[in-house]
């Protein structure tokens, strides 16, 4: 009886408020308050996460660093025997290796890719995601339409890789296939994180997270 009920509740069309079951545990973000509001208790790996910011440098990297450090180290939850690479596709500035190492990221598994045009950025990100080599792929895309985001979402599932798209705030009106959409606003008190869309979760605003 209970097993058939479980099966029914697993159906994604059944909305269960805050008490939902999650098939796959998320990747701990390192921020307990954020983890509490994310379905699965962390970042949804093997899916596309979108982070919208007004400008780059307001704390979007610090938000990710604990999770990336965890991916970069030996991860007992991973499906593979060795940790994956972290690919940076078209970063707006230079990721600074000494600071990355201070955050606990293994620099020998870093891949920086700087494609020329918008279509090349998406192609590179898709290649990196679907290759199965990268644990996480961070990319900065000005243009990412619904179809492209769906492609990347599929590539992330195929390659068991976490796709993170950084996009300008203007993109908030565009539809997206991302499993998680965050908006980051910098205020004088700190950075406000707004969960706009979360598959299996609820929209929330988290103040002074960073």
């Amino acid at each position: 009886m209970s097993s058939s009920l479980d099966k029914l509740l697993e159906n994604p069309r059944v909305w269960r408020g805050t008490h939902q079951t999650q098939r796959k545990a998320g990747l701990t973000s390192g921020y307990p308050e954020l983890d509490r509001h994310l379905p699965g208790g962390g970042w949804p790996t093997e899916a596309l996460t979108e982070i919208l910011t007004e400008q780059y440098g307001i704390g979007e990297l610090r938000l990710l660093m604990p999770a990336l450090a965890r991916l970069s180290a030996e991860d007992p939850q991973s499906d593979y025997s060795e940790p994956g690479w972290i690919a940076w596709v078209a970063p707006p500035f230079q990721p600074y290796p000494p600071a990355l190492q201070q955050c606990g990221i293994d620099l020998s598994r870093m891949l920086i890719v700087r494609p020329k045009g918008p279509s090349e950025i998406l192609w590179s990100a898709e290649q990196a995601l679907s290759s199965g080599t990268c644990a996480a792929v961070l990319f900065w895309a000005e243009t990412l339409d619904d179809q492209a985001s769906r492609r990347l979402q599929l590539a992330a599932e195929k390659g068991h890789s976490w796709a993170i798209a950084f996009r300008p705030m203007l993109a908030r009106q565009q539809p997206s296939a991302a499993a998680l959409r965050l908006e980051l606003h910098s205020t004088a008190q700190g950075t406000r994180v707004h969960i706009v869309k979360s598959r299996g979760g609820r929209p929330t605003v988290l103040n002074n997270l960073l």
Partner: protein
Amino acid sequence: MSRAWKSPVTVRDAAPTPSVAQQVLPFVEPAPLVKPSFLAATLVQRLWFCIWLPDLPLEASRSSDDATVIVEEQQGIHRVLLADAKAQAAGVMTGQSANAALALLPTLQLEERSLLQEQQALEALATWLERFSSFVCIADRDVLLLEIAGSLRLFGGLPPLREKISSGLRQHGFDASLAIAPTPLGATWLARAGRRMCIRDERNLKRTLRLLPLASLNWPEGLCASLTGMGVTTIGDCLRLPREGFVRRFGAEHMLELDRALGHLPDPRNSWRAPERFCADCEMTEETSDRELLLNICRELLLSHEQFLLARQLGTQRLCFSFFHLKGPATELHLGCARADRSAERWLELLRIRFDQLVLPKPVIATRLQSGMTQALLAESARLNFHTANDRPARPYSIAQLAERLIARIGEQSVHSMALIAEHRPQYAWRAQSLLSDWASSTLSEVRRHLRRPLWMLPEPALLPADSGYPLHQGGRLRLLDGPERLETGWWDEDGISRDYYTAVNLAGIRLWIFRNRSRPSCWYLHGYFG
């Protein structure tokens, strides 16, 4: 006992007069060779495979299917050197003048003999033959020799090996005469005589060689004529002549040749080595812009490249394709891969990615493939697999494969990894590391934990406007949180700095890494974001 060994020596000093019996029949009962005991253990029975290409001049420079003859200038007159079957059917014969041949067959194609093309064809064949033996030798202008004693086991015996070589020669368009014998000269003479023979035993060799006509020796015509005049028509007849007299009349070198052919004297040969870099052209009869056709040509070139590297157990990391146009410089396409490789399929995959973007300004007339530096390719040893339930699989693709694909499409400068350098100046504390080079051990120094470093670095420090000495950013005054951290000097490479670094926060709450130059004028610069 060792008469056969001594004979060339006695020629020179001629001191001991041999007995009558020795003089008359020196080779009737050849004495067994006495070899030093320390050599006997290492002596290996050799077997030589000879390929004689009698029609090489025709096959090397033939360009059409029509009746063709090769002509060569002899004393100011072009004479027919070789005629193909069609020309022969029309009555064209070797030695005719070119005009006479044209009178017989007006549609005849005349080709000038090209020794260069013959040599190239021979080298190409030698390269191809390297797959059958590690010892290939270009013995003459039209003779190739292979030492096959060591290859027999690998190819499953003599008949399969022979079949492979002869069918391969046919595919390459060569009509060859083959023979196998324990000595290189013996094999050559057998092949020249047109005997498709396989002799593995030295005693059989002597018996067979005796029957060969003098013409198969390729000796000078004058010599053959005078020998024939003496009633000597076969090698056996030659051997029956007194050695002393033969040497005096015709020279020692011919007697030595006979000794080598029979195996009485060693006959060392030089192994032919193909150049270690691959370079091959494919020329087309007319210009083309058909990209599919060009890709197919590239594929053919890659396949022969793979064979070339396979024969040497080599791989390469770089390739260069050149597409030649009738006018203007060639279009070049460089490919690189992360690990030395020779697989044509893998290179073709990389080529396809790049070829889509390649702009060919004009139609292409010829294509060239040139390999970069080759390196020894170690076969990968597979790991013994003892799977247990807890074992997790390795990642399906290596980073090298991903990097290759990315580099093929967007260029090598745009894809890299990073390594730390022990250096106090922030802009020099790291370097980009190519993914195509060997993995250098990165992260040589542990960064000290207490130093505050930003996650985002600007490529060049940006000048900040200042308001009465205070730095401004996005229209507001910056608040300094932390600092100063003084970083100085760099006299050794003439890029010395003298800066005070601060952590600052702007009105919007963004944290910045800024510095002030200590030298005049002391301006504020933005160097990074804490991200």
